[in-house]
């Protein structure tokens, strides 16, 4: 018996709960040689801004035990080039493409949401709120509940598509952030973005990254991510998408038990470009081997 792996995120129907995380999968095309895109639930494209962004100087990445730090600086082609050069590929794939985006003022966020709303090939929107608000002294939108809510409300007003908010873990209380975003109209929450970290070159007495700090990802952050998914899923009604160090089907299933409706595979795609597909297939096999008919029966099914 083939288990039912389908899940719903807002109005988005996914054939299975496995997506790729923004910034780890390009615009989809880069990985098409290694992943059958029609075997995964959805893919999330590299974060977009209104204007193209150059990103940070190098070194931008460094490996740390069980993970990596990145400070790419949101380098991206910008919304115009995205529409011209990247959208045609999205049209050719029978899998929902989710556009991740960010801005520096609530107006910028709203404008991007509105422009992405007009693109039929974009199935849903994922808003990255881990950016500084230039209008308010650079406070990171995602670390202040009022700031976050204002961005989400602005995006909500600009799109009818499924609006996913990607939460920053670099906060005192992620539940407060999650509830603020839900209250402002988010259809789903991606939990979590990278954890801010740092690496030092002892002999040179310098930070390894040109940007000094960077975002930690990979298996090293999985326990933190699981805890935050569990906390958030208990506190909100909207679906949660679990992200953080997922390398295998069993990792992904742990997130489902903790309350995630779907998961995103990120750093694993760097290590093994076929990871997302292998994880989706592995999850299905795990369910089939145990006679579990529907993945939805596992969502939040943690006992004790």
């Amino acid at each position: 018996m083939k288990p039912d792996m389908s899940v719903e995120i807002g109005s988005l129907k996914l054939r299975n709960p496995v997506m790729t995380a923004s910034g780890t999968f390009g615009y989809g095309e880069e990985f098409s040689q290694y992943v059958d895109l029609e075997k995964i639930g959805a893919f999330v494209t590299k974060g977009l801004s209104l204007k193209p962004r150059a990103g940070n100087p190098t070194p931008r990445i460094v490996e740390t035990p069980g993970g990596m730090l990145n400070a790419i600086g949101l380098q991206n082609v910008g919304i115009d080039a995205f529409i011209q050069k990247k959208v045609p590929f999205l049209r050719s794939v029978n899998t929902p493409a989710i556009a991740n985006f960010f801005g520096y003022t609530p107006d910028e966020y709203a404008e991007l949401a509105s422009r992405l709303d007009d693109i039929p090939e974009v199935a849903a929107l994922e808003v990255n709120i881990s950016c500084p608000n230039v209008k308010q002294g650079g406070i990171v939108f995602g670390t202040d509940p009022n700031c976050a809510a204002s961005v989400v409300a602005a995006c909500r007003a600009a799109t009818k598509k499924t609006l996913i908010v990607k939460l920053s873990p670099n906060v005192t209380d992620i539940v407060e952030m999650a509830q603020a975003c839900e209250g402002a109209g988010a259809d789903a929450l991606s939990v979590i973005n990278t954890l801010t970290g740092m690496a030092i070159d002892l002999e040179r007495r310098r930070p390894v990254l040109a940007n000094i700090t960077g975002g930690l990802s990979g298996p090293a952050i999985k326990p933190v991510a699981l805890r935050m998914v569990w906390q958030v899923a208990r506190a909100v009604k909207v679906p949660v998408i679990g992200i953080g160090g997922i390398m295998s089907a069993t990792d992904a299933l742990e997130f489902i038990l903790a309350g995630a409706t779907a998961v995103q595979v990120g750093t694993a795609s760097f290590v093994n470009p076929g990871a997302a597909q292998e994880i989706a297939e592995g999850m299905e096999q795990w369910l089939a081997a145990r006679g579990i008919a529907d993945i939805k029966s596992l969502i939040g099914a943690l006992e004790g």
Partner: protein
Amino acid sequence: MQFKAMILDNAEVSPGYWRMRMTAPAEMLAAKPGQFVMVRVNPSIDPLIRRPFGVFDVGMHQPAYTGAVAQPYLEILYRVVGKGTGMLSDLHENDILDVLGPLGSGFDNGPAGEEKLIVGGGVGLAPLYLLAKELVKDSPVRLFAGGRSKDDVLCITEFERLGVECYTATEDGSLGECGLVTKVLEGRLDATGNKGQICACGPHGMLKAVAAIGAKRSVKTQVSLEGYMACGMGACLGCVCQGAEHSAENPDYRCVCTEGPVFEAAVLKWEGN
């Protein structure tokens, strides 16, 4: 292409430098000089990220017993610099590696008959052997190999066997000319009146000097760069370098993995880098 490779040989060729031969699919035989592979050292999560290595050589491996079937191989030349390469050097025959490749762009061979000046610093020789193997088919090839000491000048015999005329220079004078290899390169360009083209791979300082020599003498110069990268496929954007016109106002970052690793030196920004 992603494949499992079985190690056929892993030997230290000079203190701290290793040469590894592994099995490869037949498609690997079409790898262009300058392309690279991403190797996962082991299936655990530490080290997590693959390591990039230039393709040193490809060919058909002939096992040394009667009736054995020859099979395609891939070779890499690497220096032990950290945990990942340290673990790689501990592996033995019959151990299995996970390999992605061939990735990136290769060298442009240039016109037949033209003199080819290959410049390598230390482990930068890695992608230049396959290049020399290609170039000697139709062009005179000269190798300029440099390093801190004689231990850093690798595999010269292999280049000589191809018929390449080899020049060496070491900073401590323990092999060849005492000083920088770029000085020897300039000597050759002086002698020929700046004929031919340059292909270089090595430390950034050496590449910068080679690029300056090529620019000043109007000699076409290609360089193969290194970069910290996580994916090798243009997704992580970790390995970017700056194009010649790059500025804070008009940024021009290029991916070493997909747009390189081989670039015409003239398209890159060197000053300040």
